[in-house]
């Protein structure tokens, strides 16, 4: 008996030691420099959400400013809860259902990563939180397309469902190591920081939602002028600052790749704003502040998928092309008559598509050489363009189809389109029982 216990204890000890040595052999140590930058980036990406709230909030009428800012903060709250519960497991767990999504039970409430250090030498917690910020801002972007006319409860339900059924699958395909778009072609579809995952998915969903819900009452007959462009500009500035975390953090490193991403992000934003300003000056004779803000965003959106692969000259070109195409898209919107209130599709959808496709023509030669070496032959620009177009097409088709189903379900159960009376009273009063502005002139 005694012998048995002793031997079993020894066995347990031996197993534990074996486990320990096995673990020690593949142990990766934390790199403090990389971890510090990734922590900073995580905070910078979160800063974009209040930035977006200010950007959108300033663009709506005085009676809807709180309602609109609450769309961004609502995403911060709802996805902030949902991401550690389900989102991370669905996005970055191993593929299930034939690669439709990922799933890893250990990631529920992030339990399984308490001690995990990733091969990029950062704690997995930092990666999970960094990715969580992307999951937060993406549904918040959609809100710009149906601003001033949705029920707050319906909105919360919609973004929760959307995050699970649209964001997580696309995120898994593009960014998880076993995602099918990640492994498409020679070196995968290029989406450095979220051209497809964040901007195309949200922009297309915005367009579908704007068409599904219909225009605001009075659109386009009545002028719906911005309540506070000062706030919009401040928000655009915060977005620009936060975007350094968004793009330069997406290298998951603190090295040359980070520096490249940061440089091209700065250049594309400036080039987008510059181009928009010049176009407006030529077209109307006046450069508007909203034009500059839109140009900044168009440039930033376009460089998002490309920040890892294009040199500065390409960034300059992408920013300029995106600004011109987005400008035309917004003019076309007025002609076509659909009510994408704050141009979520016009800037994020179109800008994202422009960036994801056109980046192909500006990829630095060393990347193309690596790709060719990997397939063991040649890899042409047009082959990569095919890969990019596939990723864009898949994202558009999937996001549009699933979003339409979700919109239909939420509209029929909780209700998404606000009642006419509530819409005329304004979201601040009807949805939140508050008012955003004190004694400023009504709109």
């Amino acid at each position, binding site marked *: 008996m005694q012998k048995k216990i002793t031997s079993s204890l020894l066995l347990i000890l031996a197993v534990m030691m074996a486990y320990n040595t096995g673990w020690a052999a593949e142990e990766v140590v934390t790199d403090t420099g990389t971890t510090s930058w990734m922590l900073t980036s995580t905070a910078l990406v979160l800063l974009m959400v209040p930035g977006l709230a200010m950007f959108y909030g300033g663009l709506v009428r005085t009676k809807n400013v709180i309602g609109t800012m609450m769309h961004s903060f609502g995403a911060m709250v709802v996805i902030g809860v949902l991401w550690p519960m389900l989102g991370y497991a669905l996005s970055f767990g191993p593929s299930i259902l034939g690669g439709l999504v990922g799933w890893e039970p250990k990631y529920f409430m992030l339990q399984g990563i308490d001690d995990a250090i990733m091969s990029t030498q950062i704690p997995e917690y930092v990666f999970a939180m960094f990715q969580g910020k992307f999951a937060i801002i993406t549904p918040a972007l959609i809100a710009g397309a149906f601003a001033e006319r949705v029920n707050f409860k319906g909105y919360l339900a919609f973004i929760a469902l959307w995050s699970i059924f649209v964001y997580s699958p696309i995120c898994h395909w593009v960014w998880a190591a076993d995602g099918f778009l990640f492994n498409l072609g020679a070196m995968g579809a290029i989406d450095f920081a979220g051209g497809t995952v964040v901007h195309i998915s949200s922009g297309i969903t915005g367009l579908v939602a704007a068409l599904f819900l219909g225009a605001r009452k009075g659109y386009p007959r009545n002028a719906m002028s911005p309540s506070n462009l000062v706030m919009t500009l401040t928000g655009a500035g915060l977005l620009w600052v936060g975007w350094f975390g968004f793009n330069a953090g997406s290298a998951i490193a603190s090295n040359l790749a980070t520096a490249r991403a940061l440089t091209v992000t700065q250049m594309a934003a400036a080039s987008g704003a510059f181009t928009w300003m010049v176009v407006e000056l030529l077209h109307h004779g006046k450069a508007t502040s909203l034009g500059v803000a839109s140009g900044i965003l168009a440039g930033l959106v376009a460089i998002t998928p490309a920040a890892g692969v294009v040199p500065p000259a390409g960034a300059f070109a992408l920013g300029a092309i995106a600004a011109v195409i987005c400008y035309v898209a917004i003019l076309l919107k007025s002609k076509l008559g659909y009510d994408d209130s704050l141009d979520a599709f016009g800037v994020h959808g179109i800008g994202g598509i422009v960036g994801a496709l056109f980046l192909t023509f500006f990829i630095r030669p060393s990347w193309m050489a690596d790709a060719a070496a990997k397939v063991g032959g040649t890899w042409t620009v047009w082959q990569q363009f095919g890969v990019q177009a596939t990723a864009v097409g898949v994202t558009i088709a999937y996001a549009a189809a699933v979003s339409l189903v979700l919109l239909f379900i939420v509209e029929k159960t909780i209700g998404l389109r606000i009642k006419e009376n509530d819409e005329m*009273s304004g979201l601040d009063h009807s949805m939140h029982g508050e008012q955003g502005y004190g*004694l400023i002139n*009504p709109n």
Partner: protein
Amino acid sequence: MKLITAIIPPDRLDHVREALIQADITRITVSRVTGHGRQEDIEFYRGQKIAPNLIPKVRLDIAVNDQFVDITVDTIINAAKHGVGEIGDGKIFITSLEQCIRIRTNERGGPAI
């Protein structure tokens, strides 16, 4: 000529403005004001219901020729009322207007309105 001054709830501004446009009364001045009547407004502040001392309202100033007084007043009453009517739906004051001058042309009286 009369000057119609209406004090209405801010959340009915769009309803009233739209109804006035339908009734062909398009020349109006709108300002945001605060004041006190019989109403106790209820807003939420950190989970508590609170009643602010001064309640925000919207003030419309509409100068009209005499034959338009009734339609203007009726339109405002119908559009500003919450349901069958609540305390806080506002008031309308009508005062005689001595003179009206269009600055651009120096026209006087009824045609200038």
